[in-house]
């Protein structure tokens, strides 16, 4: 599975349910890959000596080793998002240049907001060029008897409407006289997936998935029952 904008993370918390909550939130964000989760901060520390994920979710108050200590001791620091039940450390965590600070209990929207902050930071500082669809990759469509090209990397999702297909890009919508199926056949199957009889989405453009609905920017796309299991499996990698 290749995503255009893939972000990796790990999670550290001594409480099993706190970790599982983060795992279930990560499952809803296809572009966020949870590499490992750790109950034990010491194991996490040795993992971080040899691996550098983009983001680290870390509880502050753990037995033996506080999250703050762990971060202070890291030579190469990922982006840090602290999770804690207790607000008295907020000031200190900001001095460690944490991206965000999640107070338990936090809901998915709040978690997603923190991830968006991190994404923004990554795109600002990233010297790594994010692999994208090669510039030449595009699809040629006819609109009002004129042919023109739409770059694959600009497409967010497609919607069938009677005999037409709406092709949505970040700031436009092209209406093409074709069937959804015929357009889908021209798209790379590892980047575009059908999630409903009338909808196809670009995997890399999904903001999140929740309650059988996909959010891309301001649009909500339903996931049909027939497609739900396959789509869930795909998200889990």
């Amino acid at each position, binding site marked *: 599975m290749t995503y255009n904008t893939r972000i990796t993370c790990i999670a550290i918390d001594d409480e099993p349910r706190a970790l*599982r909550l983060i795992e279930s939130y990560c499952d809803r964000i296809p572009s966020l890959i949870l590499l490992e989760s750790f109950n*034990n901060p010491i194991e996490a520390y040795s993992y971080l000596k040899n691996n550098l994920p983009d983001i680290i979710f870390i509880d502050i108050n753990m*037995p033996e080793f506080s999250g703050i200590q762990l971060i202070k001791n890291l030579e190469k620091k990922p982006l840090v998002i602290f999770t804690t039940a*207790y607000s008295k450390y907020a000031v200190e965590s900001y001095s460690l240049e944490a991206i965000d600070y999640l107070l338990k209990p936090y809901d998915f929207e709040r978690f997603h907001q923190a991830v968006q902050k991190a994404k923004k930071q990554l795109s600002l500082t990233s010297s790594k060029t994010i692999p994208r669809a090669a510039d030449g990759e595009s699809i040629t469509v006819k609109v009002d008897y004129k042919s023109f090209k739409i770059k694959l990397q600009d497409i967010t999702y497609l919607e069938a409407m009677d005999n037409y297909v709406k092709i949505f890009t970040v700031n436009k919508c092209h209406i093409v006289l074709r069937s959804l199926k015929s357009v889908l056949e021209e798209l790379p199957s590892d980047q575009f997936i059908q999630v409903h009889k009338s909808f196809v989405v670009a995997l890399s453009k999904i903001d999140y998935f929740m309650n059988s609905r996909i959010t891309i920017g301001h649009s909500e796309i339903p996931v049909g029952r027939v497609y739900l299991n396959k789509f869930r499996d795909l998200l889990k990698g």
Partner: protein
Amino acid sequence: MSSEKNKAELSLLKSQIDPHFLFNSLNSIYYEAIEKTDLAPKAIMSLSNLMRYVLTDAKSEYVSLDQEISYIQGYIELQKLRLPHKTHLNFDLSVDNGEVMIAPLLLIPFIENAFKYGVSSSSDTEINIKLRVEKNHLSFQVRNGIFTNKEADGTQSGLDNVKKRLALIYPGKHDLRINHETNSYQVDLSINL
């Protein structure tokens, strides 16, 4: 006058619900609710009972032993929900008469401490709690290891408060021994109720 002052001082010294424990518990319950498990309703009940006790019942000068014990049991249940499976907890209880009255929230700070310091994320640990009440004589023991390098935030003041309360409520009727080693902690408290 002095007894009024004592009352005011005593109410200030009473232990409160530790915010850390409260919000971590809520986070665990939140996860169970998202997953729609059977644990969520039970845990919400335990937490409600706990909060009601601390916010209302325990405002009285004395409560029955039964009330205090069910508070301790509820607290332990919630701690079990939070903790990794590496913690083994034994609570050995024998009370001849649950109607006997006791000042509330005297025992809990020692149990809170055991959970604060006696839990590890890497090694198996044991917390042993023993409570015996016979003919109005209470003996209470807590044994736990110490697995932390945290500065004792707030813990010391919690213990000092309990000592002050014991001195004010049970003067000459109690004996508290704390044996604090490098990696073990032992509390022995006896009270003539």
